[in-house]
């Protein structure tokens, strides 16, 4: 039940209370209203990670590609450091 799902922030719904700052977030086309109090830095076009109606993190677009670059970088290392010990 701790799963959080990334969705795209489409628009921010203004509220005088920063704790009630909300936004409309699209999860592959399904749009839900999400509380943005914990991601004051989030802007439309960002992907936010949402759990039980709250955005808890903004997905870092550059870091998101690291999973795919990681092995190529490993392959650049001399193999002896990988399998020592």
């Amino acid at each position, binding site marked *: 039940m*701790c799963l959080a799902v990334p969705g795209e922030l489409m628009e921010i719904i203004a509220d005088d209370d920063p704790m009630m700052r909300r936004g409309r977030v699209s999860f*592959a086309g399904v749009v839900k209203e999400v509380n943005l109090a914990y991601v004051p830095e989030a802007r439309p076009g960002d992907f936010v990670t949402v759990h039980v109606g709250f955005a808890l993190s903004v*997905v870092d677009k550059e870091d998101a590609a690291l*999973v795919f670059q990681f092995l190529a970088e490993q392959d650049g290392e001399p193999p002896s450091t990988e399998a020592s010990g």
Partner: protein
Amino acid sequence: MKYVDEYRDAAQAERYVSALRRVTTRPWVIMEICGGQTHAIVRYGLDQMLPPGVELVHGPGCPVCVTPVELIDKALALAARPEVIFCSFGDMLRVPGSQGDLLSVKAAGGDVRIVYSPMDALELARRHPGRQVVFFAVGFETTAPANAMAVYQAAREDLDNFTLLVSHVLVPPAAEAILSASGCQVQGMLAAGHVCMVMGYEDYEHLAARYAVPIVVTGFEPLDILQGLYMCIRQLEQGQARVENQYVRTVRREGNPQARQIMQSVFQVVPRTWRGVGEIRRSGLNLRPEYEHFDANLRFSIQDITAAEDPTCISGLILQGLRKPPQCPAFGTRCTPEHPLGATMVSSEGACAAYFRYRGAAGTEKRA
């Protein structure tokens, strides 16, 4: 779905599987703490792709599974009261208490409602001032900021018909309980990415140093888990024991400061009993004294209930990584998702339910 589908790519997964074979020279035992990761591992058969001798053991990371029977029984007692609207996340509805579950209370006329967010429960309290809305606040650190916000707002609005039945649990103390147990086999850990998204991972740096185990903060998609395993095994092979962050796209070392701040203002750390495991010190959250008028225990003065587990259920051992579901005599026979005896068969993130769903009633089928 962006930031989901690409991390399920089979060709990339194959590259990680080969890399794991290159880096692994001997057997290792690694625990994934989080039930969401257990689910993905069993669903995608990741454990069956690993080099020989690398074993994954499943940890206690499913809040539904570790909620004590006594607390489920309290929830059932509250939900049966005529003045109460009892709100819960959907996955708690079928968790067996000592007599029935929330679904059976609902069938008998109790006003039990599934909510997606604690804010939905708060909204029900606003709309039904003549009723008492009780929210079953279950979860790890991931869920605590949402539940804290519901209390924070209820206090601001002076709502007197909204309370929480709190059963919050904290992951690092449970990880420490496992690592410090005598005979612990776990040599490396994958930490739960979404818990770290909120709390950061400084707590794990102490654990890694103290127990000399590498801990890798890891996401939930197959490539995340394979990369997390690669990082963990590479450290083991090199004799290192550090914290590394695989889930960099979502997790920062300090976590989410805004969320932590509200959590800390509403909740305090308390001892907590884990179903099947027992009490772990400083492993739970409860409301601070300033917010105790939102505590359902005090509002309704419900008695402490003592309840017994089904004696055949070994979910406690499964939650500590000491047994696997097919080793339970009731697995797939007396205990199925339709008729669960223990919580690890109910929750979709429970290890027993994951094995039953993806490995069949014997728990041993290979992935097609």
